[in-house]
């Protein structure tokens, strides 16, 4: 059993706080994740990473991210989690060496060849076993431990009871998903995208074919007629917001948030909510009372309904999306605060989505409570009054009665 708490001055306190590990699809998101409370951020490079896209991090970006993270005492993990084909074998050693020199804390790896290389090159960086390998049991973890792996990211199919048993048996770092989208099939073992789109799911091309609509046939006869619900294999997103205390008590080393493709608003909202929740629990675990504040915060950036995944056991139909994908964020991200003049109460903002005079805006921050104000005064860059903000990334001024801070974010409160 891992020791996670001890009595200090008559009060039990958590002494083993889990790492909060957030995703980032670009440098802006990386910085926001760290500013909003992530202990570590995982990013994908241009090569060898799932979600391999042009927007992924160059080595220079990773270097800048590492330098930024160091200022906050945070860490950068880089995903090198593709399954290598013959034509992907070149260049890995050099890439790993460069990541190591840059000061990356860890690489997340799915292919045993990269595991072997990273360890045989005597690099400083840690090697973490990716969830793409769907590791579900302590024997498999022991195998990776024998290979010198520093951490295992468990498959999303691991239930709380199994996690508890695993935590009691292994002494390698364990990372567990707490929030985000879920593969409906075993990760790394799904070839739907390959067959339906010719896009390789294990090399960053997944077309999410599981979320498409299908017709079901029995003995070649259509089962779902025109008015019937089509067959689909789309999962709701996982959120373990109500179970963070239980997971902390197990001594799980790292809590992972999924979503490298998600928006900066999503990253800020989700990281901030879990940061506050973890800190609140760890400060006084025995007095901690679960409330719905954190879930409500998370829902403000959610684009799918939440479920518990496999936390209790097998997900039922309630954990899947059938007819509607339920993609409707309750609040829309409209501004990022750049500066604030306490004398004039004018905040310089970077506009992100359309809003107008009269709208209610909620400002959230890693440093203070949420505050809501009505847009009464909106000025352009030349400080002339305007009525609407409809040019993304434009610098504007808006009057906010209460003090806000740079990098706070504003979202439009949905009118009921």
């Amino acid at each position, binding site marked *: 059993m891992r020791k996670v708490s001890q009595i200090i001055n008559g009060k039990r306190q958590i002494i083993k706080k889990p790492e909060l590990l957030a995703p980032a699809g670009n440098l802006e998101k990386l910085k926001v994740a760290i500013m909003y409370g992530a202990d570590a951020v995982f990013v994908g490079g241009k090569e060898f990473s799932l979600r391999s896209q042009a927007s992924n991090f160059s080595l220079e970006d990773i270097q800048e991210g590492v330098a930024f993270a160091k200022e906050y005492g945070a860490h950068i993990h880089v995903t090198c989690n593709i399954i290598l084909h013959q034509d992907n074998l070149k260049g890995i050693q050099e890439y790993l060496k460069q990541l190591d020199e840059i000061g990356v804390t860890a690489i997340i790896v799915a292919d045993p060849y990269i595991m072997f290389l990273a360890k045989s090159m005597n690099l400083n960086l840690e090697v973490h076993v990716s969830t793409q390998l769907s590791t579900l049991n302590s024997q498999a973890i022991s195998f990776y431990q024998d290979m010198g792996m520093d951490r295992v990211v468990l498959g999303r199919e691991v239930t709380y009871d199994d996690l508890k048993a695993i935590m009691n048996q292994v002494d390698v770092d364990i990372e567990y998903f707490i929030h985000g989208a879920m593969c409906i099939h075993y990760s790394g073992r799904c070839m739907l995208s390959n*067959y339906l789109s010719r896009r390789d799911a294990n090399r960053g091309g997944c077309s999410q074919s599981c979320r498409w609509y299908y017709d079901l046939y029995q003995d070649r006869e259509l089962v779902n007629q025109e008015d019937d*619900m089509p067959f689909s294999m789309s999962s709701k997103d996982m959120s373990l917001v109500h179970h963070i205390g239980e997971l902390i008590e197990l001594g799980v080393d790292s809590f992972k948030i999924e979503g490298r493709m998600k928006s900066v608003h999503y990253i800020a909202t989700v990281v901030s909510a879990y940061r506050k929740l973890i800190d609140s629990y760890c400060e006084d675990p025995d007095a901690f009372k679960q409330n719905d504040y954190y879930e409500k915060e998370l829902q403000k950036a959610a684009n799918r309904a939440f479920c518990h995944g496999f936390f209790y056991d097998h997900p039922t139909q309630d954990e899947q999306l059938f007819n509607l994908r339920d993609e409707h964020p309750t609040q829309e991200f409209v501004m990022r605060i750049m500066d604030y003049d306490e004398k004039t109460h004018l905040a310089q903002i970077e506009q992100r989505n359309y809003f107008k005079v009269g709208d209610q805006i909620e400002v959230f921050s890693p440093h203070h409570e949420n505050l809501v104000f009505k847009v009464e005064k909106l000025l352009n860059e030349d400080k002339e009054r305007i009525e609407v903000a409809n040019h993304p990334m434009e610098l504007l001024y808006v009057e906010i009665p209460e003090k806000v801070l740079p990098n706070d974010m504003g979202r439009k409160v949905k009118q009921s």
Partner: protein
Amino acid sequence: MKLILSLNKKERLYDYVSMGIDTFVLGGHYSFYAPYNFSLEEMSQMIEQYPQCSFYVAMNALYDEHEIKDVQYYIDKLVKIGIKGLLFQDFGVLQIVKKNSYSLDMMYAPETLNTNAMTLKVLKQQGVTSAQLARVIPLEEQLQILQQTDMPLMLQVHGVEYIAASKRALLTNYQQASHLQFDLTSQTRLTIQARNSEDIFHIYEDQRGTHIFSQERLYMLDLLNQIHDFEYLYIETLMMDENEAVEVASLYSDALKSFQNNTYDRDVKSYMNLLYQLKTPLHRGFLFDQTVYKLEDVRKMDHEKSQSNH
């Protein structure tokens, strides 16, 4: 080059052995999928009855922590009845075998992951003794891997192809959500077809979750000239009735003999005609096709396609 076949009916074992096939994969209690799950007693009987044959057992699921002790116990039983080896994809299975110093051929068969030679070299150092190559890579790459790997490799030459598997009861969940009635446990009755796609897949559910396979059978009966250096040529009999399985096995068995007698080039057409007469849907999978690495490649492909259409 020898045939290895997933056994779908104990009573047809004699037929297969008569054709000269002596290596079989048996489904059992812990198989992820198999044409038939044999009991330990049945396995033991077959091993005793056919001492000249090698029997592998498909321990090819991903195992939860709560069942791993039972898996260990089961492997111990399999060792005692004298199986040749295990087909596995969970490294927990390999770890159990290593820790107990069992003498088994450990064939790594993770469906989707064996896609390069260097990884297999690393895994050989970790105790993997043979491997099944992924089907989602072109034949050219499979041959490259064969040349660069020094362990016996298995290539699926015939049968339905694994597409995906979920621990979830996806058909049950859909049935409950839609209130539609259908038979969700038959391996062959249900198919799904994505809207706007021509591909049709088999889907079924069992105690391990939901399984999706191609409806078409991969075939390589006419490719022995290219693939003859593989140690094992695997026939997947899942979703075949017993007659189809025997017919297919017989064709491949004859083709192998013909290859060894240097008459294959002359006979292959007639074998192919016999295969077509079975009237099962056939395809080449990814043998002469390929997936793309990055989304940029998809866009490039789409662009090239649209240019060629103009």
